C-alpha cells in the first residue's frame, strides 16, 4: 500500500498530538511513580502484620537449664523470645538456642498430625492418621502384648526422668507391668552416683558459682553450655569483674580455655589422674581441711591409695603435666577461700567416668567446701510429685519383678537408675525374639545421640513396634511405627524441673503455652492418660485425671498458684550430706583402639552454636557456625599443624582426608589449629543429621558414628570421651 503524503502527515500529527496530550496528562508521571513503587514492594516479600504487642512469660525447656523466658507476641503470633528479668536462673539473659526457638515452633521439621509408618523402618515414609486411630492402634498393641504375658518387653526412653510427663510414662509402664523405664543419661547422672557414693544421699549437684573464688575446671565447658548456660555465662562475667581465677584443664583450647586465666592442656582422658595428683599434693602438704576429712569414713584408705599412686612423677607421663604446675595448682586451689572443682566434659550431655567424677569431687571434699557457700551442694529432689501408689494387678506385678533389660539397679550396676547405652547391645545380642517388643520414646533422639549410632539404628530396626511422641521429625522418629506428636515446647503447659540449673536449692519451673497449638498435636501427658484409659482396669485406675492439665494442677497443689504467676518456685529444702571417701576401686576410661594402628586420639567437642541433643540445630544457629567448622556440607576437624605434616599426608588448611576409627571412617576436611594439642583430633558434635530439614540434614558427619561406647566399670554409663583414630589420604 502506498502511503500518501496526506496520510503520513495525518498519522504523524496524530502521534505528535497524542504525545503532547500524554505529556500534558498525569499518565506518564503517575505511571513512573507507581512503577518505581511497585519495584520497591514485590508482592512476594512478606509484610509482617502489625498489631498489639504482648508478652507471655514461660520457662524454656530446650535444655534442662530452666531459664525463664518472655515471649513477645504481635496479635496471636510469637515474634521474639527474650530472657525473663528477675528469674533466679538467668535473670534476663538468654542463650543462642533459646533465642531461636521460634524457628522450632514454626519450622518445617514439626510433625503436624499423628503418623503411621508406610515405608521400611528408618526410611521416614509415613501416612497421616487420626488421633483416634493412632491411640487405638498403640493401645491395642500394648493390650495384646500384656495379654500374652509380655508386658516386661515394653520399654520407654524419656529425655529426662524428672517432671510429671516422664513420671506419667514411668507410672504407665509400672501399672502396665514393665520395669524398663529409661532416661537419657547426662553428667547429672554421673554426679548423682558420685553424691550417692560419697555422701550416701539421693541428690543433684548444685554449684555455688556466684560465691566461689577459684575455679578449677576439668574440661567443663563453662561458657560452651555446661550446666545452665546463661547462669554460667553470668558467673563467668562476674569472675572477670572480680578477678577470680579460672583454670581450665583440657587438651583443646575451648572458648572456656581461651577466657580462663590459665589453660593447662592435659592429655585427653587424664583429667581424673590429674585431680588425684592435686589431691596428692594437698594430702602431702597438709593443705586439706583436716577437721572435715580426718573423721570421714574411708579417708585413710583414700590417703593411702593416693599417696602410693599419684605422686607427680608417677603421673607426669599420663597427664603430660610437669610437677611444678601440679604443685602450684594444688597450692592455689587449697589456698583459696572458696575453691570449686568441677567436671563433666563440654556441655556435660554425656556422663563421664565415675573415676574422674569421684576424683574431682574428692578435691572439693578435701577443700571442705561441700554444702558451703562457693562450693558444691547436694540438692534434694523437690518431691512435688506425690501421687498415690498405684495398685498393680497380677500381670503388672509379674512384669515388674522381671529384670530390667539394661541391667540398671542389678548387682553389677547397683547405682545407675537407667543405662540407655546398654539397650542396643541387649537387643542385638538376644537370641530369638527381640527382648523389646514395643518401645515408647519421648523427648529423646537416641538414634542420633548415642555412641555408635549405626549399631543403635540396627537395634531400633529390630524392635517390632516403636512409638514416638516427638514434635519434630528427628532420626529416632524416623524409626517409629506410630508417631503421636507432642505440642511444641511453646504450645504446652508443663512443669519444668530445672534439675540442671545447678542452684543450691531445687527450682521448679512452669512452662506455659505461649501460642495455641499450630497443628493437630496432643500433649504427651494427655496421650499417656488416653492410652492408660484405653488399656482399662487397674491401668486406667492409676490415671484418675480427666486431663493432663488437671493432673498437673493437682500435683503442684499449693505451689500451683505462685508457679502460674511467676513461672518458677524455689523450694527451700536442703539435705544433710555426711562425707565418706570411696572404697570401691574405679578405673579411668581409656580411648578404644590400638595406639600403633591409630596414632591419633579423636575427641568430640561441644560448641554453644551447635545443639547436639534431642533438639536439632535451628537454621539461625547453623548460620552462625564458622566456615572453619562447616563449609558446604563438609565438616572440618581440628588438628595441630605439627601433627599434620607427618608421613605421606602433609595436610594443609582445608585438605580432605579420610578419618578412620575402630568404629568407622568418614571423609572430613582439616582445619589446622594451634589451639589443640598435637596428636589430638577434635570433631564438632551436633552435625551430620540425616533427619530434620534441608537447613540441617546432610551437613557434615555425626561424630557418634565414629565413636563407640565405653562402659564405665563403676556406674555402667557410657563414659566415652574419645577414640583412637588415623588419617589417610583420600582422592577427591
Amino acid at each position, binding site marked *: 500500500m502506498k502511503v500518501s503524503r496526506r496520510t503520513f502527515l495525518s498519522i504523524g500529527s496524530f502521534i505528535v498530538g497524542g504525545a503532547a496530550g500524554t505529556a500534558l496528562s498525569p499518565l506518564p508521571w503517575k505511571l513512573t511513580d507507581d512503577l518505581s513503587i511497585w519495584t520497591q514492594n*514485590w508482592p512476594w516479600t512478606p509484610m*509482617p502484620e502489625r498489631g498489639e504487642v504482648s508478652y507471655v512469660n514461660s520457662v524454656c525447656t530446650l535444655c534442662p537449664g530452666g531459664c525463664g523466658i518472655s515471649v513477645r507476641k504481635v496479635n496471636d503470633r510469637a515474634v521474639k523470645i527474650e530472657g525473663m528479668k528477675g528469674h533466679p536462673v538467668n535473670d534476663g539473659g538468654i542463650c543462642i538456642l533459646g533465642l531461636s526457638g521460634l*524457628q522450632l515452633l514454626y519450622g518445617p521439621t514439626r510433625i503436624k498430625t499423628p503418623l503411621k509408618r508406610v515405608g521400611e523402618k528408618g526410611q521416614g515414609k509415613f501416612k497421616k492418621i487420626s488421633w483416634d486411630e493412632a491411640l487405638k492402634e498403640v493401645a491395642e498393641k500394648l493390650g495384646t502384648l500384656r495379654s500374652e504375658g509380655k508386658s516386661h518387653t515394653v520399654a520407654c526412653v524419656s529425655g529426662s526422668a524428672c517432671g510429671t510427663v516422664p513420671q506419667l510414662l514411668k507410672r504407665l509402664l509400672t501399672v502396665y507391668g514393665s520395669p524398663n523405664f529409661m532416661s537419657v543419661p547426662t553428667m547429672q547422672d554421673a554426679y548423682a552416683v558420685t553424691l550417692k557414693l560419697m555422701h550416701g544421699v539421693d541428690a543433684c549437684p548444685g554449684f555455688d558459682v556466684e560465691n566461689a573464688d577459684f575455679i578449677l575446671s576439668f574440661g567443663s565447658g563453662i561458657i560452651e553450655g555446661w550446666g545452665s548456660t546463661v547462669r554460667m555465662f553470668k558467673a563467668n562475667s562476674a569472675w572477670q569483674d572480680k578477678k577470680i581465677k579460672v583454670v581450665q584443664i583440657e587438651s583443646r583450647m575451648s572458648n572456656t580455655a581461651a577466657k580462663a586465666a590459665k589453660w593447662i592442656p592435659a592429655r585427653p582422658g587424664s583429667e581424673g589422674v590429674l585431680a588425684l595428683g592435686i589431691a596428692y599434693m594437698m594430702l602431702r602438704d597438709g593443705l586439706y581441711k583436716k577437721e572435715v576429712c580426718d573423721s570421714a569414713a574411708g579417708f585413710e584408705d583414700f590417703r593411702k591409695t593416693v599417696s602410693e599412686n599419684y605422686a607427680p612423677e608417677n603421673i607426669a607421663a599420663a597427664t603430660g603435666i610437669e610437677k611444678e604446675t601440679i604443685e602450684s595448682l594444688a597450692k592455689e586451689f587449697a589456698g583459696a577461700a572458696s575453691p570449686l572443682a568441677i567436671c563433666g566434659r563440654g556441655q556435660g550431655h554425656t556422663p563421664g567416668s565415675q573415676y574422674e567424677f569421684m576424683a574431682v569431687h574428692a578435691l572439693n571434699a578435701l577443700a571442705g567446701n561441700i554444702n558451703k557457700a562457693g562450693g558444691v551442694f547436694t540438692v534434694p529432689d523437690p518431691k512435688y510429685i506425690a501421687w498415690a501408689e498405684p495398685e498393680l494387678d497380677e500381670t503388672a506385678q509379674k512384669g515388674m519383678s522381671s529384670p530390667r533389660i539394661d541391667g540398671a539397679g542389678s548387682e553389677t550396676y547397683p547405682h545407675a537408675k537407667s543405662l540407655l547405652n546398654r539397650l542396643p547391645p541387649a537387643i542385638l545380642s538376644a537370641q530369638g525374639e527381640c527382648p523389646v517388643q514395643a518401645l515408647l520414646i519421648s523427648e529423646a533422639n537416641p538414634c542420633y545421640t548415642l555412641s555408635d549410632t549405626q549399631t543403635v539404628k540396627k537395634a531400633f530396626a529390630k524392635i517390632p513396634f516403636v512409638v514416638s511422641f516427638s514434635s519434630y521429625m528427628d532420626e529416632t522418629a524416623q524409626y517409629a511405627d506410630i508417631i503421636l506428636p507432642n505440642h511444641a515446647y511453646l504450645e504446652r503447659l508443663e512443669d519444668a524441673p530445672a534439675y540442671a540449673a545447678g542452684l543450691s536449692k531445687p527450682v521448679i519451673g512452669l512452662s506455659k503455652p505461649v501460642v495455641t497449638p499450630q497443628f493437630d498435636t496432643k500433649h504427651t501427658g494427655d496421650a499417656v492418660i488416653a492410652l492408660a484409659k484405653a488399656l482399662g482396669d487397674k491401668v486406667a485406675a492409676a490415671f484418675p485425671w480427666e486431663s493432663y492439665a488437671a493432673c498437673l494442677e493437682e500435683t503442684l497443689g499449693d505451689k500451683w498458684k505462685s508457679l502460674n504467676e511467676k513461672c518458677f518456685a524455689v523450694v527451700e529444702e536442703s539435705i544433710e550430706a555426711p562425707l565418706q571417701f570411696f572404697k570401691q576401686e574405679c578405673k579411668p576410661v581409656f580411648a578404644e583402639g590400638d595406639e600403633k594402628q591409630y596414632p591419633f586420639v579423636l575427641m568430640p567437642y561441644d560448641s*554453644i552454636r551447635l545443639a547436639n541433643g534431642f533438639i536439632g540445630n535451628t537454621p539461625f544457629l547453623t548460620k552462625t557456625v*564458622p566456615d572453619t567448622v562447616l563449609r558446604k556440607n563438609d565438616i572440618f576437624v581440628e588438628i595441630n599443624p605439627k601433627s599434620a605434616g607427618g608421613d605421606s599426608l602433609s595436610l594443609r588448611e582445608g585438605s580432605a582426608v579420610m578419618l578412620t576409627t575402630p568404629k568407622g571412617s568418614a571423609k572430613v576436611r582439616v582445619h589446622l589449629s594451634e589451639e589443640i594439642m598435637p596428636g589430638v583430633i577434635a570433631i564438632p558434635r551436633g552435625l551430620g543429621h540425616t533427619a530434620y530439614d534441608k537447613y540441617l540434614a546432610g551437613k557434615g558427619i555425626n561424630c557418634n558414628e565414629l565413636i563407640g561406647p565405653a562402659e564405665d566399670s563403676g556406674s555402667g554409663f557410657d563414659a566415652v570421651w574419645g577414640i583412637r583414630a588415623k588419617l589417610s589420604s583420600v582422592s577427591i
Partner: protein
Amino acid sequence: MNKQHNKAKKFGMVIDLDKCTGCGACMVACMAENNVPFKADETNKLDSITWLRVYKLTNGKSFPNADFCYLPRPCMHCEGSHGHSPCVSVCPATATDYSHETGIVSQIYTRCFGCRYCMAACPYHARYFNWWDPVWPEGMEKYLNPNVSVRMRGIVEKCSFCYHRYQLAMEKAYYEGRREIEEQEYQTACTQACPAGAIVFGDLDNPEHAVHELKKNPNAFRLLERLGTNPKVYYISSREWVRQAGDNYLRQEGKSEKN
C-alpha cells in the same frame, strides 16, 4: 505545633572483649529481631547476611602459647568528620544517611538500588547485599517482626542499632508526656540478649549513661581508628595483642608485643 527538636544524642556501644564468650547469641538475637533471612547453605560467609558478626582473632602463636579472642562487629555507625561516614558519602541514592539527632547511620531499603558503593566504602564489612529474595519455609514467616521491614533482592542492608526500638521508646515517652527516654528504654537486641553482659549500649555523650565512662577505659579502643572513620563502637580488652589487632599496625610499629 511545638518544634520537635530532641537533644542530640550519640548512640554507641562499648563491648568488653574480656567478657565476650563468642557464643553468638548477639548474632541470633539480631537476626530474630531484624527479620534477617537464612538459606539452606550459609557457609559462604561472603554472602551470608549477619548484621552483627562475631569474628575470631588469634594471636598467631603456636601451641601451647596460642590464644584467641572473639570480636562482635555490628555496624560502627561511623561519624567520620561531621557525619560524613564512608558509606554515607558515596551513596548516590540518598539511601543511607547519618542523623545528627541520634548518630545512627540509617539504611532505607526502598530507596536503595543496589549499586553497592557503600559496601566498597565500608572498611568493616558491615554491609550486606541481598543476592537472593528472602524465603522463609512455609509457616515460619509467622515470627517476622512488624517493626522492621523485610528486605528484598538487590539491595544492601546493615545493622541499624535496632533503630525501631528507639522509635518505639520515643512513642512510649510521647504517650507519657516526655520528650526524652531513659537509658534502659532503648537498648539494642544484641545488648539485651548478651548472656555475658559484654555489650553496653547508650548515649556516648550522656554522662549518666554507662558507655560514657566505659569508653574512657585505658584498655578501650576502636577498630581501624587511623582511617578517620570515627566509629561509635568501642572495644575493651586487657590483652595487648587484641588491642593491636584492632588497627592496621605494621609489624614493628607500636608497643612491644607481650605474651
